[in-house]
């Protein structure tokens, strides 16, 4: 009768459903690869590219707002100034302060994000604490520089850029393992 055939169809369809659940997760690396291939959302590589025009565009002033967060890391993290005003093409330096408040060493790395997102590719970082992992001894406080420049090619309607850093703990490196 139908019973065996039904079971078999059920199993096949259930496998499809399970595979599609996996497919949903597979979309995450898939989109990552697509964005990499098409150059969408490329924040890190944008830094590596040399700036096309280093001349200062004094006709515009860009407010760069600095935001600092920690994600589940026992650290205090803040910029020394809340915002800076720069001309496109002008080199600027700001400082951040980071403090390890745990009684043990901790290793963490900062991840940037930008608002508006399209400003990211025009935000050039020459020197940044986010390029490397930061290891702090127990109770250590450190000041770290960020040297950057806003590319004059920044679209004209952008006059404020929010740069937001979040520190994430790098597990297994002198912290929680």
């Amino acid at each position, binding site marked *: 009768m*139908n019973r065996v055939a*039904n079971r078999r169809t059920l199993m096949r369809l259930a496998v499809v459903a399970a595979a599609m659940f996996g497919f949903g*997760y597979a979309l995450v690396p898939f989109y990552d690869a697509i964005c990499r291939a098409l150059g969408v959302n490329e924040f890190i590589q944008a830094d590596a590219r040399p700036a096309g025009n280093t001349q200062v565009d004094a006709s515009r002033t860009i407010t760069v707002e600095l935001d600092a967060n920690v994600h589940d890391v026992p650290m205090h993290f803040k910029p020394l100034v809340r915002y800076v005003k720069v001309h496109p093409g002008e080199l600027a330096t700001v400082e951040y302060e980071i403090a390890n408040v745990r009684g043990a060493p901790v290793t963490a790395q900062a991840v940037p994000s930008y608002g508006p997102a399209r400003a990211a590719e025009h935000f050039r970082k020459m020197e940044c604490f986010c390029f490397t992992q930061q290891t702090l001894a127990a109770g250590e406080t450190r000041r770290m520089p960020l040297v950057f420049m806003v590319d004059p090619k920044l679209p004209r309607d952008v006059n404020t850029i929010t740069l937001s850093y979040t520190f994430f703990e790098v597990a297994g490196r002198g912290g929680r393992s």
Partner: protein
Amino acid sequence: MSAVVDTHGHGHEHGDHHGGYSGLMRWVTTTNHKDIGTMYLWFSFIMFMVGGVMALVIRAELFSPGLQIVNPDFFNQMTTMHGLIMVFGAIMPAFVGFANWLIPMQIGAPDMAFARMNNWSFWILPFAGALLIISFFTPGGAPGVGWTLYAPLTVQMGIGMDLTIFAVHLLGMSSIMGSINIVTTILNMRAPGMTLMRMPLFCWTWLITGYLLIAVMPVLAGAVTMTLTDRHFGTAFFNAAGGGDPVLYQHIFWFFGHPEVYIIALPAFGVVSQIIPAFSRKPLFGYASMVYATAGIAILSFIVWAHHMYTVGMPVTGQLFFMYATTLIAIPTGVKVFNWVATMWKGSLTFETPMLFAAGFLFLFTLGGFTGLVLSLVPIDIQLHDTYYVVAHFHYVMVAGALFAAFGGVYFWLPKWTGRMYDETLGKWHFWLTMIFFNVTFFVQHFSGLAGMPRRIPDYPLMFETWNKVSSIGAFGFGISQLLFLYVVLKCIRSGAKAPEKPWEGADSLEWTHLPTPAPYHTFETQPDLR
């Protein structure tokens, strides 16, 4: 081979279908496809009323500019829950109810393939519905993030969000089990001679919808699971602060979300494809092209998702691809509309209530399809994105499309289900009130949308006041008209005149030609031979 396993398969309680239960327990324990179909339909009607009240809260607040009745936070909860409940609680279960009632009868099967799983698929639903309602009473209330549950807001909401995520998981499980059941029934349990290309179109649309559901509900489950782990387990799929990307959520969601639109629409196409030939007294025009058009729509639905998100900042190439793919869908949809009209062409038409709803569907769904075509064009969509034009568009396809088809289907099959006729005069009243108030509510939203009124806001500039007032009046009229529907159905069940054996002379599928009216509790225990 099957004979060998078959001898093992029997043995445990077979044939004891009436069970020992009566009253409530009969409904809790039933495995009969007709009982389960009935429960699906009543559940969806209750959810339709709940979601409808939420819509009326929205429209009451929007009656005048400024904040009068609810605070913005609660308003957001209303728009979110209205969407979730109407899509997952009302429209989808309604068509699963039709599928349960009709598919076994239309293909000559005794019941669904997995009767107990069928019971389970239904009984998950009330719990999912309850979770959604309970979320209102948690700290922070129900999620106010929109029915699309976009990150990053969902990562920040209170505990109500978790309840909603679990509700979506449950609804997804229910849909997947229901779909597996329907697909298996259609593939394996057709009567001898009922070849795939002889099936009524309703079965065809559900076969394809079943596959769509199996393919995309798990993707939605994945998306909300990622949201859940982002919220509680330190992952950063969508959390930008952790290197995630909120836009990624939109891509995953709409990979589910666009096929979902057709999951709702295709069974409605199926119902209409049963009603129009019956009242035109002609076979459906272009049956094979209908089947292929349905399959074509389903396949195309997988490559158009990003037309919901033209404004996220995708490359122009991407916008062009999704624009062309989307406009392509107009072709199979156009084939369908053409075939329905061609079926009516030179037919002996009569307009009883089911046909009125089918004709109303045809007219208004086509209108909604056209505004969809407008929205598929990138330059226009960027202007109209998230305005009331979009709201008007999807209510034309969801309400005037799916809901009208469901109403038509209920009127069409009520005599077969209950053995009694509904009150034709009241049915027609219900249609005309619904038709008029629907358009009063939603047609004017095209105007406010074109003028720039954004959706999902409780307050708006004075310039939008006129159309919002009209729309709110229409919404209350529409809501009250649905109480008439409830009355018509109850009156039919309790005291309707006895239905003739074949109330619709043009109806030609098995449930009309091979079964008595009302359909007995058990049908086709020996399958008919249709060769």
